[in-house]
């Protein structure tokens, strides 16, 4: 007989989600701030430097005055890593998460950006629910919750391609760089590029999104993928798009890759972009 399950009241999850929805939108992650400061030193374009300075000023104002750094406070993406020895008590997990989103977007004066039906009605749900929830069961007795506010502008520039294995590293590079070039000024560069490689059609998209949860400046723990991240960043910054697309050297602040096993016939690749704000935050309960 193992230890009895740890009981976690879902009201704790509501509280944590509420707090992180607000905090993530006010406080741009430190990795992005450091990368922006570095870019300000190296950017060759005068207009580009001016844009970067204004962006840093924006992020300071947002943090100090408790304002959303970007008006697109996104859809609430909530990633739960639930230890298998935890039992959720006091209500339903998904309800508790949605209640946290509802409270956070209301109390934080955040924009509500979710419509009911995508095609015919498109009525704003008014409270930014439903959240987009992914739950993974992991070993242990902890629950890790990550909230990412995903804006529409950068999200609309995402792409996915089912390559064949023969395409290899060159095929991956070509697709990723092409995707960023195609996006141009639209996703508010400098951007952070999330790349998924492997898995299946559905899985590879989630990989790219999860890659964006890693802080800017971090590297994949696999050395070959870390090297590919660096090479892609260099290629992307040759595009000349620059801050806000006005021309310059800083098109991306970072490239994060996540990978997974895949079918012998496949080489799926996906790109999901974040702007320089890229709000996300985690907590372990």
């Amino acid at each position, binding site marked *: 007989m193992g230890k009895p399950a740890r009981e976690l009241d879902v009201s704790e999850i509501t509280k944590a989600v509420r707090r992180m929805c607000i905090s993530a939108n006010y406080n741009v992650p430190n990795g992005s701030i450091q990368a922006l400061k570095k870019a300000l030193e190296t950017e*060759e*374009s005068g*207009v580009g430097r*001016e*844009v970067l300075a*204004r*962006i840093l*000023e*924006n*992020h300071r*104002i*947002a943090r100090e*005055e408790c*304002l*959303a*750094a*970007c*008006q*697109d*406070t996104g859809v609430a993406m909530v990633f739960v890593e639930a230890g298998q020895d935890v039992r959720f008590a006091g209500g339903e997990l998904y309800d508790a998460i949605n209640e946290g989103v509802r409270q956070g977007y209301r109390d934080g*004066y*955040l*924009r*509500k*950006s979710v419509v009911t039906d995508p095609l015919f009605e*498109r009525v*704003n749900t*008014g409270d930014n629910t439903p959240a987009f929830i992914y739950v993974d069961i992991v070993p242990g007795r902890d629950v890790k919750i990550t909230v990412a506010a995903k804006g*529409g*502008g950068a999200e*609309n520039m995402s792409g996915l391609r089912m390559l064949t294995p023969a395409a290899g590293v060159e095929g991956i590079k070509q697709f990723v760089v092409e995707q960023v070039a195609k996006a*141009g*000024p*639209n*996703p*508010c560069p400098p951007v952070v590029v999330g790349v998924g490689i492997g898995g299946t059609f559905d899985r590879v998209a989630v990989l790219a999104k999860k890659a964006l949860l890693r802080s800017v400046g971090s590297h994949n723990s696999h050395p070959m993928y870390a090297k590919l991240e660096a090479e892609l960043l260099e290629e992307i910054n*040759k*595009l*000349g*798009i*620059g801050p*806000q*697309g*006005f*021309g*310059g*050297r800083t098109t991306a602040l970072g490239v994060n890759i996540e990978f997974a096993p895949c079918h012998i016939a496949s080489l799926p690749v996906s790109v999901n972009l974040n*702007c*320089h*704000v890229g709000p996300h935050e985690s907590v372990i309960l």
Partner: protein
Amino acid sequence: MARRINTPLSDDAIKTLKAGDNVLISGVIYTARDAAHKRLVALIEKGEELPMEIRGQVIYYVGPCPAKPGMAIGSAGPTTSGRMDPYAPILMENGLKGMIGKGRRSDSVRNAMVKWNAVYFAAIGGAGALLSKCVKAAELVAYEDLGPEAIRRLTVEDFPVVVVNDADGNDLYEQGVKEYRIK
């Protein structure tokens, strides 16, 4: 050095604006996104009156955050302009002179700017907190049911933008990439 201009924009003022110019806008501008544009264009097509005068005016593509108590508006940066491309030419035909947003415009919008002597400005995407400081007043004009997508009349002071497309057909995005692209 940034130039200061006031709204509404005259035809002569438009002619002096060139792609790449830094501009500080003061005066009244109107907010509208996809859903509001769809309704405005439907009104024009039916020959009905619009909820606001658009002749000489500037539309800002923005869906702001709610205002905190004591503030005019919440975070208020630009949204992607391309989504308004299907609607923009008919508004210019009816007198719209300026658009503020971010990201590329379609060929038909760029041609319409040349034809109707209009201009497209970019504000910094992801700088909504900073930009909200330039908004001194916000007032609901129409379509409250659209929530953040309602049309609002904003009074702005020294609102910082860059000219992307001028009435001569120049495009800052194309010029910028050409200058800095390696290989």
